[in-house]
């Protein structure tokens, strides 16, 4: 993350502007609230877990803490979910949990002014509308603002055990 970005935040603090971490899944650019992001790390040493949906790649050791790793590209049915040198894991804090999400590339930290934040469209943009906070309009670029907390704690992500769900297989 470049230093200029963090200066922008401070400047934009009062005006209702918010900072987002921008990442790519395939051709599209997504953005999540920077305050949810704990760190960014390489994709390695992920231990597969059995009987889990395919988009849950497994668990990894984050300095002594075991965190699940979710591949959003598989989750969103991207054609190409390859693991290369650009593939990174964004470690996010949602509620009391820590989860790693695999993305193709992290590009930027951006400050969006309220004018740049548009409401979510009526039609789909690759993931269910319920998890989209809005769109970021940068003129030539468009960012899809994802409500990462809502997405990761949702039922279909199967990351959180629900009450009444049986323990055993």
């Amino acid at each position: 993350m470049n230093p200029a970005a963090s200066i922008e935040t401070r400047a934009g603090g009062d005006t209702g502007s918010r900072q987002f971490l921008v990442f790519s899944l395939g051709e599209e650019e997504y953005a999540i609230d920077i305050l949810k992001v704990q760190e960014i790390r390489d994709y390695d040493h992920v231990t597969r877990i059995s009987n889990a949906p395919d988009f849950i790649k497994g668990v990894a050791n984050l300095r002594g803490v075991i965190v699940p790793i979710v591949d959003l590209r598989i989750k969103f049915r991207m054609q190409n979910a390859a693991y290369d040198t650009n593939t990174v894991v964004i470690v996010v804090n949602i509620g009391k949990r820590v989860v790693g999400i695999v993305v193709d590339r992290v590009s930027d930290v951006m400050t969006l002014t309220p004018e740049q934040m548009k409401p979510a469209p009526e039609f789909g943009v690759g993931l269910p509308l319920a998890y989209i906070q809005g769109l970021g309009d940068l003129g030539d670029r468009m960012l899809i603002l994802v409500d990462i907390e809502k997405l990761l704690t949702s039922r279909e992500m199967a990351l959180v055990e629900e009450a009444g769900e049986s323990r055993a297989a």
Partner: protein
Amino acid sequence: MDVSEFQDSFFEEAGELLDGMEAHLLALDLAQPDPEQLNAIFRAAHSIKGGAGTFGFEALQRTTHLLENLLDAARRGELKLRRDIVDIFLETKDMLDDQLDAYRQGQAPDPAALERICAVLQRLAHEEIGAAKAKAKPAKPAAKKSPAKKPAIAKPPKQSARKKSSTAQTSASGVPAWRVTLLGVNDKDRDLLIEELGHLGQIESRHSDGDRHEVVLASSESATDIEAVMCFIVEPEQLKIEAVVAEPAPEAEAPAPEPKPKPPAEPEAAIAASPGVDAKAASRPASTHTESSLRVPVNKVDHIINLVGELIITQSMLNQVVAKLDGPARANLVAGINLLERNARDLQEAVMSVRMVPMDHVFSRFPRLVRDLAAKLDKDVELVTEGRSTELDKSLTEQIVDPLTHLVRNSLDHGIENPDEREAAGKPRTGTLTLSAEHQGGNIVIEVSDDGAGLHRAKILAKARERGMNVSDAMSDEDVWQLIFAPGFSTAAQVSDVSGRGVGMDVVKRNIEGMGGHVEVASRAGHGTTTRVVLPLTLAILDGMSVRVGRETFILPVTTVIESLQPRDEDLHGTAGGDLLLKVREDYLPIVAVHEAMGVAEACADATRAIAVVVQGRGRRYALLVDELVGQQQVVVKNLETNYRKIPGVSAATIMGDGSVALILDVNDLCQIAANQKENGVFAGDVSDDRVIRSRMHAAHRSANHEPRSIH
């Protein structure tokens, strides 16, 4: 002064005092009470009262005050203890617990309950002591204490917290003076104490001499009250309180509401307040503070354990690196690493031992429970505890209480018969319930056994049939007893409020399995039932055997492993259902292939080229097929559910030397998974859970995906 920081230690200490009080009350021999025990009970009430006054917990203070008076009368022999009186004391103790809880949460205790218990105590005092005293010493002056309070008894009434502030304002001349000596108290505590003393009265002079600090205090509080205020900050040995003038003691104990008038001296009170204080201060802490100890929040200890865990991981990482090294420096490095390893292990053991607490902490809850329950059920029960000093991880002691309580209730309700029935069966009228704990290898074995009627085999089978469970008369006793762990299973003819709703045993079993243990039942009709709970000593670290399956590494808890062997073709026997049995000496053991249960690709499918690890799970033995045994090592148990969820067949995870995560297999769960997979005819990796999730996902995406995905 901000006293709130001392509140926590007061709550803890008061809680312990109450527990001690209960233990003593239960142990009291009513015919011939041990004066030492009576004193201990009295002191507990007294100390709590002192603390309650300091922090302004009026309900607590009022209740303990009434209780203290009664206890004092009891230890003087003025109150003849009976079982119903002890019951009232126990009830009061429970009420005090509730009040403490309320204060701890910053709430006021239930006023109705307070009034009720106060009324009970006052009536008791009135009926039992008031009458006796009226005959013996009709002219007791202490009767001046406010009329709302109970009639006078020998113990001089203490003043309320509100009055403390008012006495502080009275002139020094009319008030007795105390010389309070502090020994070896650090500056910060000393200042706090002196400030605190200032609330009790007028500080007339102070001077220091090395670590000895003397304060002359004019206060109408009694020496014991002053001591009670201080004893939450300093140890009694550090504190000495003496009267400055010859006859101030009686005044100090003056029971009149206004401090100035001086009623005639009360001889008994004088004895209590003068030099006796020192002796008392020295004897009081005997139960809790015989050796110096340190109160540390559990999360701090857990943090240290985590750090040590990281150290162990780093250690094994170094081992791996060194193993690959070559060259002249290697020998020295290896020696150093070995030393480091030994130190790390010692450190680990030392830290783990900090978390260990004796089972006494658990067992001490049961005398009361057994007593109350036996009375309720009209049964005579004697509780025997064995192995109270057996140590167990603190977090486990907390979790084991509920299941054990359940088992004890069951034994009392269903196991032990009524005295008449027992007599008819040729057994002593008093039933015996035994709680025992002992170490066996890396486990602790806790047993709850009774000499009651035992489990009723026919009844259980009948009930099971009624519930449509698959049972037969040919089942072994052990299998029949396992039926009682089925959800909702109860053979009790009548549902009582003690037990019989059938919500019990399955919860007990689930709780214990959740702790990494298991539970077994043995029973003989007419001779009683023994429930055996086997738990690992600690949840934080376990001895693991690492095994390789395909390209994945799993950990098996060594405590579950019995042996390992390479199956020979002639020992493998297929069955009609596609199951494979392995003949080990005389036994045929079912085989569970880890790669099937855990859905591992590229694993060795040929059983004769794999390794069979014989394990003990859920009370039965079976063989796990793995590709290779890698080694044995201690592993740090990491919870998976913190950030993820329970994984079937896996109890937890750990971190290997190379920083990767390895899953710890749950031997109990694994045989269940294998059984389910066979029953459902599905293979691993495609279990029902997963399919449901996928179909949900498809449904969710259909709506989102029928529009063009990109809007660029």
